[in-house]
């Protein structure tokens, strides 16, 4: 009997008489496959459109499960073209199209008799004619119905001819309508998107004082337009590609062709083109899918809801990724100092922004190390504390029956609990939860002798410091690793903290984001142009980030304030 069998015989129950069951359970849901299913089919088998509208209609009715599907509209009508009538079919999804555009610019010009569609010209148009030796030579352009429909009959700005059902379905699913005309083995993919969406609002997570107050929304086109407005240059390239075998989510890769490093663009495209997932629903999912492996789980792509921040990084030579349906842009590559920077830094004078940057650096250290250091000092290195402070700590702990590690873990976990609850509850109750949790519960816990007041101060400082980290994901990383340092401090005091810090730093310096060392600008302490954590004065921000190896090194003149010299 193997060890595995022994364990399973000890801890699992196996019925002796298996025949008592009248049904069969699927043993492994992942191995079960439906041979008829084509969902998420990654093979490039494409079905050509048939010349008969009835056949096409039947095919699509089956594809869309029309018998049970309620929002797919199949609209049959008679199309007039050059005095002739054709059987036509319009397919769209109710709620995703703009019905006014549909009626006025598609159905009306095609159905109603008007000058265009009732014009009965010859089927062949003579372009040029020449007579030589009594022989007339004519250059004739044959009448082409598809071109005639798209160029003369449908006054719509975006119309595309597609020849396969897959392309046609993809268009319908994204909010376009498909027009089938009898005798034609192609369909028209006409853009009539008109679904309800959120308007541009103020950023909710990245608030600034002096910067613009616009945030990305869920629609990728609105987001690209926001970026275009900021960059305002024809070299801004927005490449589209789809990710997800089922969802085929549209993603946009944005870069400035005259600035961004070609290798970086190629790497981003390579990673995004090589994703085998069924669905992609948010930028957060994509971030995890294209990040380098990383022991510390530090964020390697900057996630922002601010178009001005995205544009600023684009102008630095970085690559932005937008995901349709997500109000966040991903910026590649992301380095450590980016996660401690706020978009407002560049809007203020260097002295002020560097002061806040320094405060954020301290906040990061406090978030990561303060509880661990507290427990190390109180458990192993009491001599470091002034005698008076030591006495007051001892006095405050006199009524607490628990060991310090238990006390600290209870408080830290409670703090995380309050923070999580504050996020999940409806917004009007959120602040109340914070006040009730932090003030009332904290005071009650001290009065009940569960925790000491000094520990409340330590946890409160740590919590406040964690809010000063501008990037949510990096703040989360620090919050999680804080617990590791608490355990190390409790186990070995400063020895544990020092050894833990060493491993942490080595892992951090070992991390790379799209080939760029994560700690560039901080370690090694060599001068990489334009990459220092602290900002120079506005007129001295001469270089783009050196680690990006952008096509253009300088972003402003050596003397940017030329007016001073005149």
């Amino acid at each position: 009997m193997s060890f595995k069998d022994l364990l399973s015989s000890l801890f699992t129950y196996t019925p002796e008489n298996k025949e008592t069951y009248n049904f069969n359970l699927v043993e492994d849901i992942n191995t079960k496959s439906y041979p008829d299913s084509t969902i998420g089919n990654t093979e490039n088998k494409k079905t050509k459109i048939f010349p008969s509208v009835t056949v096409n209609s039947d095919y699509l009715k089956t594809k869309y499960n029309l018998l049970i599907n309620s929002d797919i509209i199949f609209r049959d009508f008679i199309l007039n073209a050059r005095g002739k009538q054709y059987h036509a079919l319009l397919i769209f999804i109710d709620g995703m199209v703009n019905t006014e555009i549909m009626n006025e610019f598609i159905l009306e010009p095609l159905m109603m008799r008007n000058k265009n569609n009732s014009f009965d010209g010859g089927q062949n148009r003579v372009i040029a004619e020449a007579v030589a030796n009594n022989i007339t030579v004519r250059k004739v352009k044959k009448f082409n119905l598809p071109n005639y429909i798209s160029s003369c009959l449908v006054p719509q700005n975006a119309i595309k001819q597609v020849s396969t059902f897959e392309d046609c379905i993809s268009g319908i699913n994204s909010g376009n309508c498909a027009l089938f005309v009898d005798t034609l083995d192609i369909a028209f993919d006409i853009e009539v998107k008109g679904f309800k969406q959120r308007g541009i609002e103020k950023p909710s997570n990245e608030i600034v004082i002096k910067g613009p107050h616009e945030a990305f929304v869920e629609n990728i086109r609105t987001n690209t337009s926001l970026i275009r407005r900021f960059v305002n240059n024809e070299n801004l390239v927005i490449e589209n590609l789809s990710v997800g075998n089922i969802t085929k989510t549209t993603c946009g890769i944005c870069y400035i062709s005259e600035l961004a490093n070609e290798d970086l663009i190629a790497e981003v495209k390579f990673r995004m083109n090589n994703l085998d997932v069924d669905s992609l629903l948010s930028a957060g999912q994509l971030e995890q899918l294209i990040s380098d492996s990383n022991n510390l789980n530090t964020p390697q792509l900057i996630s922002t809801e601010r178009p001005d921040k995205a544009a600023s990084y684009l102008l630095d030579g970085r690559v932005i990724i937008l995901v349709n349906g997500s109000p966040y842009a991903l910026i590649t590559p992301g380095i450590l100092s980016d996660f401690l920077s706020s978009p407002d830094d560049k809007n203020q004078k260097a002295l002020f922004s560097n002061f806040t940057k320094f405060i954020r650096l301290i906040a990061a250290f406090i978030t990561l190390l303060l509880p661990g250091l507290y427990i190390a000092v109180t458990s192993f290195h009491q001599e470091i504390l002034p005698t008076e402070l030591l006495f007051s700590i001892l006095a405050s702990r006199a009524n607490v029956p628990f060991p310090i590690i238990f006390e600290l873990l209870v408080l830290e976990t409670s703090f995380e609990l309050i923070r999580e609850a504050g996020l999940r509850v409806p917004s009007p109750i959120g602040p109340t939860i914070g006040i009730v949790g932090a003030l009332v519960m904290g005071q009650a816990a001290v009065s009940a002798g569960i925790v000491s007041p000094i520990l409340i101060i330590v946890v409160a400082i740590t919590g406040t410091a964690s809010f000063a980290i501008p990037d949510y994901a990096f703040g989360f990383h620090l919050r999680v690793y804080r617990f590791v340092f608490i355990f190390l401090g409790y186990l070995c005091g400063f020895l544990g903290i020092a050894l833990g810090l060493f491993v942490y730093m080595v892992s951090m310096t070992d991390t790379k984001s799209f080939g760029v060392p994560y700690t560039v600008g901080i370690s090694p302490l060599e001068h990489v142009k334009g990459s220092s954590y602290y900002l120079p004065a506005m007129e001295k921000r001469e270089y783009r980030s050196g680690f990006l190896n952008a096509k253009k090194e300088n972003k402003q003149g050596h003397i940017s304030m030329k007016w001073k010299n005149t």
Partner: protein
Amino acid sequence: MDIAEYLGGKTLKTFIGIVFIFYFLFSSSILLRNFCECLKIVYYPMTSLIFIILTFIIVICITLHHRFSSIAKVNLLIIPLVIISIIFLFVANIKNFSLDNIFPIFGDGLFNTFVTGLGNLGAFGGITLLYFLPPYLKEPQKMKKIYLSSIILGTIYFLLCVSIILFMFISLMYTNQIMPLYSAARYIEFGNFFQRLESVFLLIWILQMICYLTIIAKISLSIFKKITNIRDEKPLILVFGLLIFAISLLPKNYAISKFIEDYIYQYMVIIISIFLGIALLGLAYLKKRKKKELNTDVKENI
């Protein structure tokens, strides 16, 4: 390693490699043992020494899985901290310095100072690492500058350490002390608030020690990789970690390990690091010159 191969082929390369691996493992183990003994005496009297050593070994094994450049970058962050701490220790203790403590200058006599005291050159054992640095340099043309600055930095550090100990304690006292620098740190006092800062220094010294041990272990691994031509050294990390752990447990007690450090290790440094290293470099230089001369003779004859 390449120089040894150039001089005496693969046999000499393997022999030199084994000598240096042995030297690195032995020196790091003894240093680790002594440091852990001091830690135990100062802060962890109830903890078994094995556990203290084991924490270092675990960290070494984890860190060795990372790239050499990452470890070097962290060293770059920690070294300024170490230098600032020693300068701070020096400045903060100036009020406790007494010039009388350095007298008599040749207290043990000239022979003991200059001949027996030669063993103290073992303090420069870290210089051995410079022999193995060239393959890791991004810009080898800056090698001379890097070597000089490392030696100057090391010397300044030693000078500061020695001055603190010399000026603070009389010779009879510091020779019997455990971690004299730690004792010096205990004297630092700023008003009523900062009265005992030695544990902060200890935190920095632990970082310093783990940096040194990791670099030594990494270089030992790379030497082994070079002499055995293995593709991936990662499976050997645990073996090297366990070897350091085992060697550090060999001395029966602190007295023996201290004796090994003070006498055997220091002479080992002089023999292997200074004589063997310089001899190899010298012989290789002579061989190269001879070859060059032969080549010019052949060209002239042609």
